[in-house]
């Protein structure tokens, strides 16, 4: 019981849970556990079942894309306060990239399979979850669009302007 209370406090202090309805917070805490990964250790791998998501408490997590016949490429890193893993929300519930600890990483691991079931029966819980995931997804999508713009235009801009 003491363990659960500590976890709830830890979760409540993460930006993901700020302003969350206390009942929803208790429900989510019931699906949460602490996790620690050593530098270089995989948190999940492309193609594996996506039944969790993660809140970073400490450390740096690298999201990697597997490149056939080559080493993986890091496409984003996330740090304390960030959240990662949304494939658990979308069928077929498989990871579409690797996640790896860049250094010693402490996470809150949320059991997405457990939460999916609870969200089916409690739509307000589902709303709380989606309300937190959608802005993050939108921000990362917008960020990636701007990275495409940067990669596509920066040399062209200088070419046009600088002779």
């Amino acid at each position, binding site marked *: 019981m003491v363990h659960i209370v500590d976890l709830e406090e830890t979760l409540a202090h993460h930006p993901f849970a700020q302003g969350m309805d206390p009942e929803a917070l208790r429900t989510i805490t019931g699906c949460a556990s602490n996790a620690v990964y050593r530098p270089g250790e995989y948190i999940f791998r492309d193609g594996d079942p996506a039944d969790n998501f993660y809140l970073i408490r400490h450390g*740096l997590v690298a999201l990697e894309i597997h490149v056939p016949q080559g080493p993986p490429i890091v496409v984003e890193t996330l*740090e304390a306060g960030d959240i990662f893993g949304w494939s658990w929300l979308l069928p077929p519930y498989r990871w579409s990239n690797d996640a790896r600890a860049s250094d010693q990483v402490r996470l809150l691991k949320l059991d997405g399979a457990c939460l999916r079931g609870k969200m089916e029966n409690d739509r307000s819980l589902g709303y709380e979850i989606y309300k937190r995931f959608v802005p993050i997804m939108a921000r990362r999508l917008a960020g990636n669009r701007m990275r495409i713009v940067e990669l596509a235009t920066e040399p062209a*801009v200088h070419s046009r302007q*600088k*002779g």
Partner: protein
Amino acid sequence: MVPVPFRIAKVIREIPGVYTWHLKSLDGKPFVYRPGQFNMVYQFGVGEIPVSISGDCREPDTLVHTIRAVGPVTNAMQQLRAGAVVGIRGPFGRPWPIDEVVGSDLIFVTSTIGLAPLRGLIHEVLHRREDFGKVVVCYGTRGIDDIMYEADLHKWRARFDMHVHLTVHSAPSGYRGRVGGVVAAIRAAQVDWPSAQAFVCRSETLTRQAVDTLAGLGVTKDRVWVTLERNMQCAIGLCGHCQIGPTFVCKDGPVYRYDQIEPLYSVREF
């Protein structure tokens, strides 16, 4: 309007396609300028281009320009070696407003070669370090092989009185640094956002993104300074090539306070 001859004393290959010249005037006179200003650099018989000055203004005996080889003139210039002579007209334009930001935390936001126009300002801020609060540099590049002025970044990062947040778009597996857009580096910065002053040097689409991110953190647009690049030819506000709406970038800029030119950013094809 007549170019003054300068000899290339040193060529530094920064990253592929980007090179830095250290120039000395043939007459030995110091070249006096302010950070943020630019010169027209002329390769005799080839052409003339505007280039921001990237050096330390307290070392007026050496003029420093960093150039990306992207067109016929800059590609031809890339072939020049130490000892070659080029023509310089300048300095032109409005410098960064360093005296207006005394007492504030400063955040520099830039990517790839955008660090070049800010480098002189950062040098000057460090010369006057006691005049400012926190100093934070947020710098993004495509990859770990595209990092400009790497020696400077290492030196700055090693200082106890400033912070450098570097990010790259992608990196090999095992890289321990930050990967992502410059926005992530901005969010990692810890400054007094309600009073901080920001200096942004990126392409114009990305300047808006940086300004929006800064605004979300509490930096109002009258505390954001940007630099524009346009097709500058005469550099003294006569020819009109660099005109955007009511402003001539060569003489009214290239440094602007963002809120004063924000409407121009939303005009298509400007």
